[in-house]
């Protein structure tokens, strides 16, 4: 999207112009959208699944609109156990639990109105524990729709260290820093896939525009990469986007994911960014199998790292 804006700016200064386009309605049925994760980490969360419906193309969306699918039967299993997930809705929670849930699901408590609702199917018993290197199976049944998926969590790759350097180029801003993150890509697997998220202070973990990478270019190497802050800076300036404020607490969540999970994020992120005359539309590659549903059932092998951005 950024590329399009740059190009539009470039062309626009000379020639082009744009107008709003009203697309024809191409949708005649709402599909179920599955978004489920199972995490293995030192602070593992219960496996959970959010079920929503696809929405015909429209203009405005806000949290008071309800797209959640209630009353579905959701099972998660590994090769030994199986558990039915329990449906929990936001309005059922007390305020303390709401805070925990908001942090877990990335909900901003300040913005949610009184009509806000949010439903999730969770393994509250935590019977199925997230373990490294195991496969997990999901089935979802709602009325006549039957969906399923399998995900595998690879081994964890720890974050080796994190450094903060001065912003690149001529950016003289001394209140901000660029994060550099180090880890060792494992040699034992022929291919390894990562998703990186970050948090700042008390805020929940959030992914940037391009959050996944495979080790095609650095297989088995020690990797240093610039981690761009997914949170927008407090002042809207392009040149400080992606940087961290000195004095803030910055956290990294490095997730090992399987190929299908990687493909999902990789295509989803292109789906939003890859448009225009110099690109093609990208159809998202889901790992959900079955008619009437799309989405992801993803396993994460998570490593965390937290550091305070030095003031100098």
């Amino acid at each position, binding site marked *: 999207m950024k590329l399009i804006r740059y190009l539009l700016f470039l062309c626009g200064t000379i*020639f*082009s*112009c*744009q*107008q*709003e*386009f*009203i*697309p024809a309605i*191409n949708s005649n049925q*709402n*599909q179920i*959208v599955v*978004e489920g994760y199972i995490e293995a980490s030192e602070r593992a969360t219960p496996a959970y699944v959010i079920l*929503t419906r*696809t*929405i*015909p*193309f429209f*203009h*405005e*969306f*806000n949290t008071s609109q309800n*797209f959640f699918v209630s009353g579905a039967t959701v099972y998660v299993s590994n090769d030994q156990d199986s558990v039915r997930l329990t449906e929990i809705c936001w309005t059922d929670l007390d305020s303390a639990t709401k805070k925990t849930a908001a942090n877990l699901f*990335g909900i*901003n408590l300040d*913005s949610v*109105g009184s009509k806000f609702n949010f439903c999730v199917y969770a393994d509250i018993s935590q019977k199925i524990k997230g373990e490294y290197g195991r496969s997990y199976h999901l089935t979802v049944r709602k009325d006549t729709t039957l969906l399923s998926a399998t995900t595998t969590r690879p081994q964890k790759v720890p974050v080796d260290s994190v450094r903060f350097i001065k*912003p*690149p*180029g*001529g*950016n003289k801003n001394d209140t901000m820093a*660029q994060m550099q993150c180090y880890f060792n890509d494992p040699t034992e697997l022929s291919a390894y896939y990562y998703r990186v998220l970050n948090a700042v202070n008390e805020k929940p973990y959030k992914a940037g525009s391009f959050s996944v990478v495979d080790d*095609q*270019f*650095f297989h088995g190497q*020690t*990797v*240093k*990469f*610039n981690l761009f802050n997914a949170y927008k800076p407090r002042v809207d300036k392009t040149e400080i986007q992606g940087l961290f404020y000195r004095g803030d607490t910055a956290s990294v969540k490095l997730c090992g994911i399987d190929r299908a999970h990687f*493909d999902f994020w990789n*295509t*989803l992120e292109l*789906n*939003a960014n890859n*448009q*225009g*005359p*110099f*690109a*093609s*539309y*990208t*159809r*998202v*590659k889901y790992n959900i199998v079955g008619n009437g549903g*799309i*989405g992801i059932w993803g396993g994460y092998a998570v490593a965390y790292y937290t550091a305070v951005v030095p003031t100098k």
Partner: protein
Amino acid sequence: MRIRNFTRALSYFLTIFFFPFLLDAQNFTISGYIKDGRTDETLIGATVSSKDNPSVGTVSNNYGFYSLTTSKGKYTLIFSYIGYQNKEVIVDLSANQSLNASLSDGLSLQEIVVTAREKEQNVQGTQMGTVALSIESVKKLPALAGEVDILKTLQLLPGVKGNEGQAGFYVRGGGPDQNLVLLDEAVVYNPGHLLGFFSVFNSDAIKNTTLIKGAMPAQYGGRLSSVVDIQMKEGNNKEYGVEGGIGLIASRLTVEGPIEKDKSSFIFSARRTYALDLAQPFINQTKFAGSNYYFYDLNAKINYKLSEKDRFYLSGYFGRDVFAFVSKEQGFNFNLPYGNATASLRWNHVFDQKLFMNVSGIYNDYDFTAGGGQGDFVFKAFSGIRDWNAKADFDYYPDYRNSIKFGVNYTYHRLTPNIISATNGDQTFSNNLSPQFAHESAIYVGDDFKASKALSFNIGLRGALFNQLGPYTSTITGKVYATNEVVKTYPALEPRLAVKYSFDRENSVKASIAYTTQFLHLVSNSTSTLPADVWVPSSELVQPQTGVQYSTGYFKNLKDNMYETSIEVYYRDLNHQIDYPDNYVFGDKPLVEQSFVYGKGRAYGVELFIKKAKGNLTGWIGYTLSRTERQFPDIENGRVYPATYDRTHDLSVVANYRLSRKWEMGGAFVFATGNAFTPIKDLFLIEQKLNVEYAPRNSSRYEPYHRLDLAATYTPHPGSVKKFQSTWTFSVYNSYNRLNPYFIYYDVQNNLEKGTAKATAYQVTLFPLIPSVTWNFKWRQKKPAAIEKNPTF
């Protein structure tokens, strides 16, 4: 099986038709060159024929050479060429003789119709779906920003489709990589500048352009759809001249003249854009100081006539686009240089009057680099294609009924995939890709054969062989191949046949069939072709594309050839077509071909063409009704879908009107069904952000595309006998400011803090109304004679 029958038929024809003439001792030959009388530029496709019996005739080849063998006797031969005065020569053919004909480019002051005979070529020629455009007629048409563009003019012809802002064009349902674009016989792999807004062909350096969209003759191969054969000027052999132009975005300068009079000449032509150069002082005051974009083209050619039998030509083209983006604040820089280079060395030799040979050594290169960095991080991506080509082509004219072409062609290809490297401080990353190599060889024979006054054939056979070569490591078996070791071989046999039956001089029907094979592929993952797109060879992973085209048509000229009309119908089957799956992600696999999916295509349509070739008002109307489909098992389980460039209706109206001696007006109107595109179907939430779900591929259409361009050319001193002459061209692109859709994009704004999201679709228009003015000038060493151009197309 079909191919085998065809081969049998070919040998039958060769035996039956050649031998009687080869054995006939009473025949004599007249041969030579047909040239422009003022500059000595050879004329391509000029006709020579007997006044009494027009079927005793021939056409000059790409080097202006003709050879006519017929029985002993007295003949009045008429030499003719579009826009030139006919020349009548009485010859007594009692022995072989040489005759060079020089034609005058225009009318003497007494008006006589000069082009009639040449004009019958469209009816009487065997080849169908062929259009020759003289650069003079192209220059009269309106052009975007005043930049005359031969490829854009071709897109005004029926069966040829283009998109605004793209150099790539689509012929009868074929992709942009399926057109063989030749400049002095060198393949031009990327004919576009500025992401395709302009073509690389500088009109001042171009002499002639031929488009073959029907069955291509056997001397052409390696592409499925069409041939665009462009010849550069050779340079004035008689006097020095300078011409050029100053336009809105670019300027041109061409210098030509004799090196040794009547023996050798040169031409050097340059073009460069400067819009952003002029803006440099302003850009340097912004935070983007150092950013710039420009492109340039250099064309150079020299020729040397060693003797009447031997001529040498050395020609070259070099063009580049240079884009630099610098953002000092962010410490970010990005460079994008890319371009083509070609060089052709050719030797023409006339063995005897009936046998003409051209031996060529050709080098061509297209390379694309993208590089840049921020802070410690520096990256570079490089791709390209480089060919070394040697070929020998023979034209053999045993008698006036047969014009035989045969030859051999060999190319060594070096194809560089996207080699990406990056450094981040002390760390280095690379995708460790290596170039791929291939031999492409071909042998061909073809005959343009007049069986009778009414019936003629163009029959040909081309055999091609493609070898993928080492060094290469198989991505299937892991086997390592040594340098020049053959990895995979693909043979191909391509029969071609065209038949013409003429009812009289002004009415004919034609039919043709052509099998074609393509070994190199350019697959684009965008709606337009991009300079970064990579040419990929046929290999153990990729099979050659194959195609067959059937076409038939009726051709009629009216009112003493004032009007040329035709209706052509075509049907094409395309196999092993290549595309990306619709969840393709760039860089997903090391080689792009590992991500390819394969399918088939078909295209059919009808093309109507009416051209007014003479008079104060000239021009044409071209209309195409067509359908182009693709089917890939791996795309939506084999659902047949319209190709992106499927266009139901496509209309072009082109007119040129001579208002007075000083003013000439030109106009072009185009109307086309909107392009197919893949629309949005639904939105869905993931991580509380809106994402888009797409409907089936190409299941929707943009609004129709239409546009009217106008031009006026003002000659302040028509008929001037001064050495220096100039003209002004005023043009308006998209004169009624139609906001045609260029692309549609969806903007999804997620605001997680506020818990809101908004999705909007936008339609972007590339070029609204754009006026331009160009000043063109010409200086000649000698004063021209007082002549005036005859308005023809």
